[in-house]
């Protein structure tokens, strides 16, 4: 009797136990059911709340409909106006005292689940409408990679990747203007990047292959185009290294390199024209660039609206092919007029935040002359910036610009205002 009672108790507890530990499939189904029921309850509760809300307190909730039912892209525009009050005449392109340097029109949107598209058009009196950037970014690639196709700012150096209107200064540093172009270095082709952190800090490798580096030398006529051979295309690579020093400060130290065949001017029999070449004669020579950049930022989190500091330095060296072997021009004596030596240059820039809306900064620039051993351009500039809001900026700049080769120094006074309309764009970092 005692045994049978114990057996019954054992069976009962076993069945109770089995009831308490359902199979995995049962468990998942039950969990799904709970989740569904709870979600429905949540939606009903919110709907009830919405219907009960008084008109004076508009409330929205789930099921409020799409924010952008027509799937319109984000459209924004930035106006960049400069004024030149330099005592010895205007020093800006075109010689104007007031100039709409550029209106930048940007459109961006997802194309499909695999690509995002960005278009940036630059509109100016000097250049008309130009495609600044237009690229599709593949957003669904594996192994933490990303790829772009189209035209983009080349990932060479630090400030070159920032649009001119968003710079901390009025103009790009002189080394960027001289080696990469007055509006920075852009290229049309393929862009790839991968992030990794094998040593515990952020690293990123970026590589590009583009049709040509910089602005095409339209006025130079060469026997064959620079991109005829694959070796004549533009190639670049950049390694970014980033560390958080503390909660408030961080350091970035990066290396860049680029190479391409670029047209340089020649003289034929001492004349700026060659038989068989329609236009100013040129020759394709290899030009390479290497660079390193350093950025230190400080911004205390609690006081970050009012205080920040940045110091940035960048060095670039242009490596030029000095003695081109093959001009392609036959039956004539060719004299090479391109860069005769390697040249280096760089800048050191710093900016301190004075108040919530104002900053003071300064920059020292130097660039070697690529034609002569005894020439080096130097410049020192100071800046005051005032931001009425996140969407408008006013800046005043004084620069003492000292060209090499014994030319006299120039004092430059520039004022700038930029203003943006459209959706809030991310703050550049």
């Amino acid at each position, binding site marked *: 009797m005692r045994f049978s009672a114990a057996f019954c108790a054992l069976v009962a507890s076993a069945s109770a136990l089995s009831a308490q530990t359902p199979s995995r499939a049962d468990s998942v189904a039950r969990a799904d059911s709970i989740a569904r029921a709870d979600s429905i309850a*949540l939606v009903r509760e919110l709907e009830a709340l919405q219907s009960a809300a008084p008109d004076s307190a508009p409330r929205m909730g789930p099921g409020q409909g799409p924010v952008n039912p027509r799937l319109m892209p984000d459209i924004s525009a930035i106006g960049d106006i400069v004024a030149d009050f330099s005592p010895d005449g205007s020093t800006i392109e075109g010689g104007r005292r007031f100039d709409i340097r550029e209106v930048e029109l940007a459109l961006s949107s997802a194309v499909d689940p695999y690509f995002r598209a960005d278009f940036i058009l630059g509109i100016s009196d000097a250049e008309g409408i130009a495609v600044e950037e237009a690229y599709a970014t593949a957003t669904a690639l594996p192994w933490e990679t990303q790829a772009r196709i189209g035209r983009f700012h080349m990932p060479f150096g630090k400030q070159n990747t920032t649009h001119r209107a968003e710079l901390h200064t009025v103009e790009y540093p002189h080394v960027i203007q001289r080696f990469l172009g007055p509006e920075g270095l852009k290229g049309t082709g393929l862009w790839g990047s991968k*992030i990794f952190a094998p040593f515990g*800090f952020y690293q990123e490798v970026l590589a590009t292959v583009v049709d040509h580096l910089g602005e095409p030398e339209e006025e130079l006529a060469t026997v064959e185009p620079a991109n005829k051979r694959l070796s004549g295309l533009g190639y670049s690579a950049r390694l970014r290294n980033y560390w958080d020093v503390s909660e408030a400060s961080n350091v970035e130290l990066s290396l860049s390199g680029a190479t391409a065949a670029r047209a340089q001017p020649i003289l034929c029999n001492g004349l700026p024209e060659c038989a068989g070449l329609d236009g100013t004669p040129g020759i394709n020579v290899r030009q390479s660039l290497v660079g390193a950049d350093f950025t230190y930022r400080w911004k205390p989190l*609690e006081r970050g609206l009012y205080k920040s500091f940045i110091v940035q330095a960048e060095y670039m060296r242009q490596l030029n092919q000095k003695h081109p072997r093959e001009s392609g021009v036959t039956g004539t004596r060719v004299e090479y007029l391109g860069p005769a030596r390697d040249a280096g240059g760089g800048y050191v820039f710093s900016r301190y935040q004075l108040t919530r809306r104002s900053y003071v900064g300064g920059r020292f620039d130097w660039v070697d002359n690529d034609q002569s051993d005894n020439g080096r351009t130097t410049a020192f500039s100071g800046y005051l910036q005032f931001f009425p*809001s*996140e969407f408008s900026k006013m800046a005043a700049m004084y620069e003492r610009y000292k060209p090499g080769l014994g030319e006299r120094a120039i004092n430059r006074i520039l004022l700038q205002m930029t203003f943006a*309309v459209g959706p809030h764009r991310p703050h550049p*970092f």
Partner: protein
Amino acid sequence: MKRILKAGLAGIAVATMLSFALPVAAQPPKPRLFVVTSTTDLHDIAHSVGGARTEVIHISEGYQDPHFVEAKPSFVLRLRKADVFAFVGLDLEVGWMSLLVDGSRNPKIRPGSPGYLDVSRAIPVLDVARGNVDRSQGDVHPSGNPHYWLDPENGRRIARLFRDRFSQLDPAGAATYAQNTRAFEASLDAAEKAWAPQLAKLRGKPVVAWHTSWKYLAEYTKINIVGFMEPKPGVPPSPAHLAGLIGTMKRTGAKVIIMEPFYDRKTADFVAARTGAKVLILPPSVGGVKGVSDYLGLLRHDIQQLVNAL
């Protein structure tokens, strides 16, 4: 001798087995979901719901302005392995979020993926713009006021949203998430009962706030915000605005100016000196001041401070 050898070998075998077994038994269960939140408030609620099944980290700190977080590459590293990225939405993170999400190259947290969790979609939002909206109205959030976590009812909604999304991504943990959510809500219920008498003291009391971030707390506590230090959202106060505000405070009897720890209090002190008001620095988020380390603690602290000041 053989016996001793056998006993020794058996001892070694048992010790070896234990050395494998014991650490396993001592280790906590491995998290099933890696969750990154934009703010500390979402972090605490996600942690309450997820428990040991989730590892949760946050990007912004409670003592910084969540509008102006820097898109540091180190945040990209945090996001690249995330199963869920939960954010406040309503453009609170518009200045930095897209750079980080794009930079992370993590398909699990891209828009449209289950790991991309816009928490505002579960919230009845205040201040949804009506009519034409442009920036002449300041740094407006057209889809509504994003500081909704300061109403405990929205805390419950956030918890339920996390429960549902975590259950979708980790069905085996659904029962745990549901249980944790019930526990979170129960603790919130108990806390609300405890501070109900304090809320009664706050009802209708006039105050001035620096930014519109205190509207949800005002809705909950029934304090009456009679004016803002900012003339328009995100726009620093002008002398003309302050003159009008001082008049409003004198007329309504507002004796407290509420502001976040990350704003400069000089202007608030200036107004307080001319109105006899007190400047009350309140943390808008978990971690905003020392000692406020969780969501319930944040609400409790802010309500207690209001009661003390009013």
